């Protein structure tokens, strides 16, 4: 319980700093911190493989890609928050965030759920692998095509037009 409290507080602080800081690189670093905390929370929920995948894919590959693009485009990042502002963007955005928070909490906290006892080896690699390669084989194969499509799409998108 104490562990969850500390981790939840850290995750929220990292998330708020990620949104609030002016510097895009600092945003990315805060987001990496948030992802690592979330990976620990995944492991406390019994999803060991997904916690490790979270660190490898999100905190590793995805954020390296983000940092690389920030560095590549860094000529424009300093001035990007100083352009002509949309009127009321900041208060309205925060109000929309608070409103969605209230609506989601209101919709969720009334629900009554009874827990089920977890089977042995719940969340282990064998458990997830069996589900992935039997019941959910077709969606799993579809993701392979999705990744291929994304790969080809990016190559077509950013190639030189000469």
């Amino acid at each position, binding site marked *: 319980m104490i562990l*969850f409290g500390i981790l*939840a507080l850290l995750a929220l602080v990292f*998330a708020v700093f*990620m*949104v609030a800081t002016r510097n*895009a690189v600092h*945003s*990315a670093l805060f*987001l990496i911190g*948030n*992802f690592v905390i979330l990976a620990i929370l*995944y492991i*406390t*929920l019994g999803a060991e493989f*997904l916690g490790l*995948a*979270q660190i490898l894919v*999100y905190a590793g590959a*995805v954020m390296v*890609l*983000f940092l690389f*693009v920030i560095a*590549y*485009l860094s000529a*424009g990042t300093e001035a*990007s*928050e100083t*352009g002509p502002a949309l009127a009321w*963007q*900041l208060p309205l955005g*925060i109000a*929309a*965030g*608070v409103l*969605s928070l209230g609506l*989601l909490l209101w919709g*969720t*906290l009334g629900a009554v*759920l009874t*827990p*089920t*006892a*977890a*089977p042995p080896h719940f*969340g282990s690699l064998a458990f*997830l692998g069996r589900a*992935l390669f039997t*019941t*959910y084989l077709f*969606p*799993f194969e579809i*993701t392979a095509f999705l*990744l291929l*499509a*994304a*790969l080809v*799409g*990016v190559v077509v*998108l*950013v190639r030189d037009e000469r």
Partner: protein
Amino acid sequence: MNTNLTYYLVLGICLFAVGTAGVLVRKNPLVMFMSVELMWNAVNLIFLAFSRYLADAAGQVFVFLVITVAAAEVATGLGIIVVVFRRRRSLDADRLSALKE
């Protein structure tokens, strides 16, 4: 192992709301994109909490698929941002108003 579902739900919802506010408030498309990633992860956390609570593998499989889709989304999204920057030499979402005229 502590599995009190409500705490995980509240944390996931708070992170989702922070991500929503981030997308709406920030003007740097890269930071907006990172806020979307935060929202993905808030939903993943809730998926895993329900998966643990109902002892059902479907939640974990779904998170696995979400991580894959998010990786594809980041690749294409950053590609689009790079192309937009090459064309307009600017990283301000407010100036992307070509469809307005």
